């Protein structure tokens, strides 16, 4: 069973000629089949955690470890991490001019699976996945994320999640900016992937709204660069009722 282990992770960024530490010792273990929700206020470092694990060059790991089944993730290049089974659904997916969705999906599936998928089954696979997410087939011929609405971008991320079948999926605020219909469709996609039992999910969110559709096994509260509380789904209910205030006020996290 695939396990992602994050131990005492410290991460900083360069900003205005100074170094700012954003993650201040994160510990977390995500196993295949589990769903973890990481909840926290804006600026607490949630997205930094997601991007650091994926290997974004902007972030510098100053100490700590991230391993996937014992393999050192931090030693891997961005593409190696993906091929090892990591997936990051981004909050702001990037536009890529000149590359059609269909070409992109096939190229990444080829990279992840180690061989080009057989054309006939592949076409059917993509078509079915798009239908389930209620995406227009014409979508496949558009350039990646170019001119996509917020909802289309997120659906496209979940489409990739379904096709690439990672071991560990990190969903960075996939719910933000979605209307209720899109939120439901996206959540159904995440639940389908979860139902396979093959994926460990790290769901990063600001709002409790998505947890009406996706039921986490574990809920973690993230504040000031680290996890400050962990519990079961009941923790999300508490956050919905009381907000983050208790965790962001000085003293508690110190």
């Amino acid at each position: 069973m695939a396990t992602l282990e994050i131990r005492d992770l410290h991460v900083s960024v360069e900003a205005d000629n100074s170094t700012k530490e954003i993650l201040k010792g994160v510990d977390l273990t995500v196993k295949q089949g589990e769903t973890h929700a990481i909840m926290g206020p804006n600026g607490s470092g949630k997205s930094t955690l997601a991007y650091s694990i994926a290997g974004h060059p902007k972030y510098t790991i100053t100490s700590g470890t991230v391993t996937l089944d014992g393999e050192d993730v931090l030693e891997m290049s961005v593409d190696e991490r993906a091929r090892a089974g990591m997936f990051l659904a981004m909050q702001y997916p990037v536009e890529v001019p000149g590359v059609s969705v269909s070409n992109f999906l096939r190229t990444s599936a080829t990279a992840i699976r180690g061989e080009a998928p057989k054309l006939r089954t592949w076409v059917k696979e993509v078509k079915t996945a798009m239908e389930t997410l209620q995406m227009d087939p014409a979508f496949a011929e558009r350039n990646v994320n170019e001119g996509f609405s917020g909802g289309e971008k997120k659906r496209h991320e979940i489409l990739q999640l379904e096709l690439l079948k990672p071991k560990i999926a990190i969903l960075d605020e996939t719910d933000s900016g979605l209307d209720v219909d899109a939120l439901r469709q996206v959540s159904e996609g995440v639940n389908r992937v979860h139902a396979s039992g093959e994926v460990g999910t790290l769901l990063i969110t600001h709002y409790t709204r998505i947890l009406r559709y996706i039921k986490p096994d574990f809920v973690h509260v993230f504040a000031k660069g680290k996890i400050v509380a962990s519990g079961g789904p009941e923790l999300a209910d508490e956050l919905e009722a009381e907000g983050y205030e208790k965790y962001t006020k000085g003293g508690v996290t110190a």
Partner: protein
Amino acid sequence: MAEAQNIPVGSTTAGTIAVAAESTVATRMSAPPSFDVADFPVPHGREEEWRFTPLERLRGLHDGTAEAGGVLTVEVTAPEGVTVETVDRSDARIGRAGTPVDRVAAQAYSSFEKASVVSVPKEAVLTEPIRIAVHGEGGTAYGHQVVELGAFAEAVVVIDHTGDAVLAANVDFVLGDGAKLTVVSVQDWDDTAVHVSQHNALVGRDASFKSVVVTFGGDLVRLSPLVQYAGTGGEAELFGLYFTDAGQHQEHRLLVDHNTPHCKSNVAYKGALQGDGAHAVWIGDVLIQAAAEGTDTYELNRNLVLTDGARVDSVPNLEIETGEIVGAGHASATGRFDDEQLFYLMSRGIRAEEARRLVVRGFFAELVQQIGLPDVEERLLAKIDAELEASV
């Protein structure tokens, strides 16, 4: 009616876009078109038609100091039925397709000694392309090339430029009524070459002219395709593809002169740039004269900046003297392939070099497919891959 679309590139790219202000094709020229170099003042670099060109890299082509004496071979391979001649300056077939629009073109016209004339007789439909191999072994040369098609003739001409040269030339394409001509001009020069050339097309009644300009090489390449129509119903399609590397200056200046009613033109140029000092210039002038009712024209320029340090100047310009037209429009945009795009693709398991190839191939694919010549298309895609590999 005209639509301008400009997406400025990221601030770190040093890319810029300028849309022409209130001025006309005629007012922007230093002098009216002329065959005589003496009619053009020596440019100092601030003239509209020279302001993007590094004059110091023209090796004297612009100021009369470049003396011919280089070694340049022009080899024409043509299928049966095609006449290939080398003629004197006095030959009446020279200079019919268009008049030099700048000093270097006029210098070339004033300085060439022999011209090459390729004639396809009327109604001849060639199944094999005519190949013109221009190869330089260094030094300055002035050239003139004529390709003429009789009425209803059909031909494909592939012009290859290789080696090293400082070349100024004019190339005339004369299409008889109903003729169809496709010209592929590939600038695959060594990185030291300087090539300044005007391509004149005179499109006959109901004739179709398709030009595919492909520029990869050279230190400085500046091409000026000019299209004029000799009768109604003419069509011109002008496609261009350039891959500008570090230190290269590649400039394409198009002028489509709709001087005749009911003609069409479609221009699409795309370029990728990478490396320090890579500079691409695209000027798209379309002139719809008062007499040219029923004109249908569109022009497009797209640039993809792959690295920091590259610069694009793209200036589409549409000048309309009659409202009685079918359509007229233009679009220009420059985008950049940046670290975030690279990260996004790599985060899906795609290797860095594959990601770059994906983006550039995708960018050019639509244009390449319009060429309609499979062997040329394959060669181009292979060349694009090679350019990309050389870059990293």
